[in-house]
């Protein structure tokens, strides 16, 4: 095990250091066993071990290293963990180190050190932006699918998906607050403090494990104390405040309409696999006001071969030195266009490193930081740039040259040997969430960055403070934060006092002198060096220039053409350079080119966290009836119908479905059988206008229905198509009970509510879903009455007392019950409804008494067969959104004398009155043993070549145990006029089945059986 050779000796450690040197942490990278310290990130631990080469570029497979220290990292993507806990594409800069962590590079083959696809670099003159649109067309057209695309697909993508289901759990939680502060750097902390002092309910979200922001990595003094200490104390005070919730390791991801902010809290990721509790928690926060204090990201400078491992952001280098006690290099070259990188130089020197030179693209750098570095004997070369680099696997040498006034290409003047290049191109405020909240950006010429435009505020209630607002002076950052916090509290209705911001000691933050492309000896794309703009997508300055040349003049088009900003870092560091280079190519000012849209999420979010608990059985909770256990006990096979589990059939003694169904059907036709019909939708409509309402939504007249009577009703949509069917029972003068199909219950309920609330609010009624108020047993068969009479001795269930389509209340099996004479099987049938909670008791009582009558449970499949024998339709099976009641031969259900109802007008439209529409008919196959495939299409001429003229299709098809032959229902054009004619069903297996069109009622046409 190698030791962390690049760890700064304790005596030179920064006071900001935040690792526990006493706790070594063993980990593996790329198969090697290494050691870091508690508090390290994977990136800092790798750097401490001198590991810079951590990956390869996507196109040319050039060696790549760690660039940043946070979410903006473009390069260092790793696969962490193994098996079902394996996770691709994590940024090493964001992975907290834990014992036995195992990480591996992604997309390298055969190995990180030797990658075969590095040969791509030889082809790089061809692999320019959009090259694949121009080629891979050679050869036959099929080569794309067979040859080219498989090659591209294999080369693309970073890490690998885990092989099986995730063992971890995720959860969602909702919160409301008056003021939501995003970011707990100095701006965010002082905003939160000001808001909290007003008594407002405050939430603070911090991505890092610790509050403090840049105070954790830069030596500053605030309020007479070291800045990181001030941050810790302020955060502790906030956390102790009863109205404040401060969440660390929590990243705000998106801002949506109505100040809805999503954030993810990483609960156990830093503890390693197997930690108890949910792994991540997704927060849905509804905020009164949002204070965005998300800081700024440093941006790199673009120069030739700026992608080698060891070329890092200067700020990140400072962070590794101060916070993690790591020296990312011993001989550093610094390239900058602003003062901040000089702090990095000082940090490196203090940590025992050396600084070969500071190359400053400015002609006359000055100021205290510059002088401090000069005083330490570091050569400062003003007006210089890097024109090239070398080093396999790690930068070894840079070529440098003074910059021409017009930034034209320059031959290198000399070289500098180094093992680290720290680069700073200035800072870009992190405005993602502002933009998502529909705030606009303005170009700040002085700071050379896009900042939130106060003149064009966000639609969502967001204010911005600190570096996110383009403010880089610590004193001002604290003041802005305090103001924004107080303002937000006031806007949320609290009284916030003005506070005096604490005194600070910090170096002045001078603006950068923008330079977007450091010239080398040749224009980009023409020399050997590559000027990388987006490291993750291997987009170069030459690619952007080519895009501009080819007319991709909109920044969105350039992005799509070159892929700049399309990576997992979403261009946090590179985008600004890309658009500035585009602006330069187009000869336009940067603000005129503008930015691309900042799309959520701010950082990638696991699908697991998005789904939360809504996985597995909870994806869509199963609904079961109170008789469910009884069905299971009988070995029922279930089917999904809408959200419900319904018993499809009850096999006995090794029966297959057909045998079970045949037996169940015979029981219903010859003795008595019972179906659990509890899942049918049930809606009570109550109120003085209930009757009028129902007359409008059903095709039938329901106002004339007598109390205690039942009618079969049809509901149409606006287009005159059948939407749902069911029975309507008049329970009382002002009270109806509707049934709906099992799958349609929620839709119908919504539809009725919508009609009532938006179309006819003047009607006095209310709607109540009572589906799971009543459990229902449908008892059908010639002996149904005998069985029920035994269970309901006090009720007169005779045909005279309770004729067909009547309803009565009473007691069945000692349970309060409603009994309906309805028949969907064609047999004598009673639907017995009892309170949901005693459904099981009813079922048991039926079977206790039913044994001697041969009571048999029947499932949905037998129910389908029985109703098909009677020619009864099932909505969704005989109908498909195109079918009208006329098509189904249900004209009798259309009230002729009543007033208007939904769909009536549509039924009169030309197309719905056509006489060649499809009609519901029965089909009998030539061979009575042949059961047509449901969904089979019907033609008149089976010999026609495709496209064939289809005249209809089979909607239902079964072997009828009653008729002892197959039967089918179908929709056939002009079917009712074609009785006795033949149609053909050409099947997938090549057979053509012949069938004769017949009446859809196959059994007991006179309806004699329903009265028993």
């Amino acid at each position: 095990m190698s030791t962390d050779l690049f760890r700064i000796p304790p005596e030179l450690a920064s006071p900001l250091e935040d690792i526990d040197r006493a706790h070594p942490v063993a980990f593996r990278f790329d198969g090697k066993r290494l050691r870091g310290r508690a508090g390290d990130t994977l990136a800092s631990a790798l750097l401490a071990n001198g590991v810079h080469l951590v990956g390869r570029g996507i196109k040319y497979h050039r060696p790549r290293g760690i660039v940043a220290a946070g979410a903006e990292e473009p390069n260092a993507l790793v696969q962490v963990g193994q098996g079902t806990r394996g996770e691709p594409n994590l940024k090493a800069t964001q992975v907290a180190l834990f014992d036995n962590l195992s990480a591996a590079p992604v997309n390298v083959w055969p190995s990180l050190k030797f990658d075969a696809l590095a040969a791509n670099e030889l082809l790089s003159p061809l692999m320019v932006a959009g090259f694949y649109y121009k080629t891979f067309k050679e050869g036959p057209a099929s080569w794309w699918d067979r040859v080219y695309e498989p090659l591209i697909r294999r080369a693309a993508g970073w890490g690998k998906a885990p092989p099986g289901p995730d063992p971890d759990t995720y959860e969602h939680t909702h919160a409301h607050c008056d003021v939501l502060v995003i970011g707990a750097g100095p701006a965010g902390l002082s905003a939160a403090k000001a808001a909290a002092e007003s008594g407002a309910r405050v939430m603070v979200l911090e991505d890092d494990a610790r509050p403090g922001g840049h105070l954790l990595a830069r030596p500053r003094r605030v309020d007479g104390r070291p800045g990181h200490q001030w941050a810790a104390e302020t955060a502790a005070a906030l956390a102790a405040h009863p109205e404040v919730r401060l969440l660390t390791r929590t990243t705000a991801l998106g801002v949506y309409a109505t100040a809805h902010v999503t954030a993810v809290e990483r609960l156990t990721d830093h503890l390693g696999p197997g930690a108890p509790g949910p792994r991540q928690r997704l927060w849905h926060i509804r905020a009164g006001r949002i204070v965005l204090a998300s800081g700024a990201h440093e941006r790199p400078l673009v120069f030739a071969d700026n992608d080698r491992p060891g070329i890092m952001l200067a700020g990140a280098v400072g962070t590794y030195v101060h916070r993690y006690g790591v020296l990312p290099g011993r001989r550093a070259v610094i390239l900058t266009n602003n003062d901040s990188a000089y702090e990095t130089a000082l940090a490196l020197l203090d940590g025992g490193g050396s600084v070969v030179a500071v190359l400053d693209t400015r002609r006359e750098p000055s100021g205290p930081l510059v002088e401090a570095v000069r005083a330490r004997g570091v050569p400062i070369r003003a007006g210089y740039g890097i024109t090239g680099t070398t080093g396999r696997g790690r930068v070894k040498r840079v070529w440098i040259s003074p910059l021409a006034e017009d930034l034209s290409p320059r031959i290198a003047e000399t070289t500098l040997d180094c093992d680290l290049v720290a680069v700073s191109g200035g800072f870009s405020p992190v405005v993602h969430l502002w933009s998502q909240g529909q705030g606009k950006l303005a170009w700040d010429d002085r700071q050379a960055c896009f900042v939130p435009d106060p003149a064009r505020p966000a639609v969502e209630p967001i204010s911005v403070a600190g570096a996110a607002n383009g403010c880089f002076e610590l004193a001002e950052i604290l003041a802005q934060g305090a103001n924004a916090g107080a303002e937000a509290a006031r806007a949320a209705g609290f009284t916030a006092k003005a506070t005096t911001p604490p005194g600070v000691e910090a170096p002045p933050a001078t603006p950068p002198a923008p330079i977007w492309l450091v010239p080398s000896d040749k224009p980009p794309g023409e020399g050997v060096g590559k000027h990388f703009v987006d490291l993750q997508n291997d987009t170069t300055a030459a690619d952007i220039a080519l895009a501009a040349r080819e007319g991709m003049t909109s920044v969105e088009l350039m992005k799509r053409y070159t892929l700049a900003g399309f990576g997992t870092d979403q261009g946090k560091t590179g985008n600004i350079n890309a658009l500035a280079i585009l602006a330069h190519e187009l000869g336009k000012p940067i603000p005129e080119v503008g930015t691309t849209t900042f799309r959520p999420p701010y950082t990638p979010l696991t699908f697991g966290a998005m789904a939360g608990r809504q996985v597995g059985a909870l994806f869509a909770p199963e609904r079961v009836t109170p008789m469910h256990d009884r069905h299971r006990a009988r070995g029922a096979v279930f089917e999904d119908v809408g959200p419900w589990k319904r018993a499809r059939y009850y096999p006995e003694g090794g029966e297959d479905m057909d045998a079970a169904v045949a037996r169940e059907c015979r029981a219903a036709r010859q003795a008595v059988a019972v179906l659990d019909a509890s899942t049918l939708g049930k809606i009570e409509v109550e109120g003085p206008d209930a009757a009028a309402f129902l007359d409008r939504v059903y095709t039938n007249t329901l106002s004339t229905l007598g109390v205690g009577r039942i009618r079969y009703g049809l509901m149409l949509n606006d287009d005159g198509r059948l939407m749902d069917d069911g029975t309507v029972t008049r329970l009382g003068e002002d009270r109806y009970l509707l049934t709906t199909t099992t799958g349609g219950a929620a839709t119908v309920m919504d539809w009725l509510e919508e009609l009532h609330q938006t179309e006819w609010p003047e009607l006095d009624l209310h709607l109540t879903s009572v589906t799971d108020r009543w459990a229902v047993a449908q008892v059908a068969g010639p002996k149904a009455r005998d069985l029920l009479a035994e269970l309901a001795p006090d009720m007169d269930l005779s045909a005279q007392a309770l004729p067909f389509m009547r309803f009565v209340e009473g007691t069945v099996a000692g349970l309060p019950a409603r009994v309906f004479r309805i028949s969907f099987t064609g047999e004598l049938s009673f639907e017995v409804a009892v309170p949901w909670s005693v459904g099981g008791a009813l079922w048991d009582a039926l079977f206790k008494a039913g044994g001697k009558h041969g009571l048999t449970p029947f499932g949905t499949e037998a129910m389908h067969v029985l109703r098909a024998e009677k020619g009864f339709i099932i909505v969704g099976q005989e109908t498909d959104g195109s079918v009208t009641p006329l098509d189904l031969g249900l004209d009798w259900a259309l009230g002729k004398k009543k007033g208007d109802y939904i769909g009536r007008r549509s039924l009169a439209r030309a197309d719905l009155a056509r006489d060649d529409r499809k009609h519901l008919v029965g089909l009998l196959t030539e061979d009575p043993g042949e059961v047509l495939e449901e969904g089979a299409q019907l033609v008149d001429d089976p010999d026609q070549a495709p496209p064939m003229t289809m005249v209809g299709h089979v909607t239902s098809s079964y072997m009828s145990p009653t008729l002892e032959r197959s039967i089918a229902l179908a929709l056939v054009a002009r079917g009712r006029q074609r009785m006795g004619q033949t149609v053909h069903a050409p099947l997938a297996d090549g057979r053509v089945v012949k069938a004769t069109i017949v009446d859809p009622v196959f059994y007991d046409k006179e309806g004699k059986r329903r009265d028993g």
Partner: protein
Amino acid sequence: MAQRATNLFSLARQALSHHRNWPRLWAAAEPRRHYQAIIIGAGGHGLATAYYLVREHGLSDVAVIERGWVGGGNTGRNTTIVRSNYLWDESAHLYEHSLKLWEGLTRELDYNVMFSQRGVLNLAHTVHDVREAKRRVNANRLNGIDAEFLDRDGVKAVCPGLDVSPTRRFPILGATWQKRGGVARHDAVAWGFARAASRLGVDVIENCPVEGFLIDNGVCKGVRTGKGEITADKVGIVVAGQSSVLAGMAGFRLPVTSHPLQAMVSEPIKPVVPCVVMSGQVHAYVSQSDKGELVLGAGIDRRNGYGQRGSFPVLEQEAAALLELFPAFSRLRLMRSWGGTVDTCPDASPIIGRTPIDNLFINCGWGTGGFKSTPGSGWVFAHTLATGQPHPLNAPFSLDRFTSGALIDEHGAAGVAH
């Protein structure tokens, strides 16, 4: 502008001069005063219309007017599923015509639109789904469209990553399979058509919003734009989510509502989803891009709106649906989400044809599923503009079907309408 075909050799030749001599993909154009035909909207459909107007109907003087940038509407925002296995004859014929054009499109346009015929699965999870799936497969077959019903094992063989175990909340009982379906690179489709149209002399005019119509006695004479008035013999509206707005400008109404529709991609990973997988029951659809991202589409946001911005719960639902099909994807991560504005019709079928204003035509209502028809839609709409009459393929998709009642209801049939 004489241009030679692009291929590996032209790339190599250009490389010698460091790619300095590539011409613009489409010429920068400023509006002329008059055109034979103006197409509003430089999405795929509008650009294809312009292309076929010249290529198939010999018009010489055509402009496409775009308020933003080429392909910036739904064309550049969709999940790019291409298939033709629609239930009803009218749709099947239209989409199949389009699919046939797709099959030759890269060559036709001399631009690689990366049309990838990796196959489309539509999963069936219930007895009802199976019945409907078989119905569609049978109808497709008899219409001459490739279609197969796969059982559970067949599904597993095509897409091994799917969890087909019977214990899932919505077990997979089978699927329809259209091998010729797949995905394409959406931007390339817009760029390819823009480039090809421009090479035929079409003016592609960006950053030029249409703000009104020049209408005289019920006859459309041209448009008012941010760059002035432009007259034309014929005008075609092809603006997807903005259709009702443009119709409003011309003084007529459409039975179209605009909704946000979101899509999202995961971080790029190595290939795991070899085909397109769609499920109406759990409401998910997913494919994997050539860059390695899982491309996922959500359902529409129920509310109406023209903002290209949806709400997060819709995406959560989509993620849950994804994990129901692929439980192993839980640790993969959403990288980016975005929204478009889709123009939905009551019967989930498009409107392609005449409007109440003479010489003004409209092509809209593709809703959540019009990318697949890009070439076909342009082809029939070009015919309609050029001849003043719909082609038999689009005749059933007239605006008057909402008066006659001859709807083409693909809701039930399509499940997820993409």
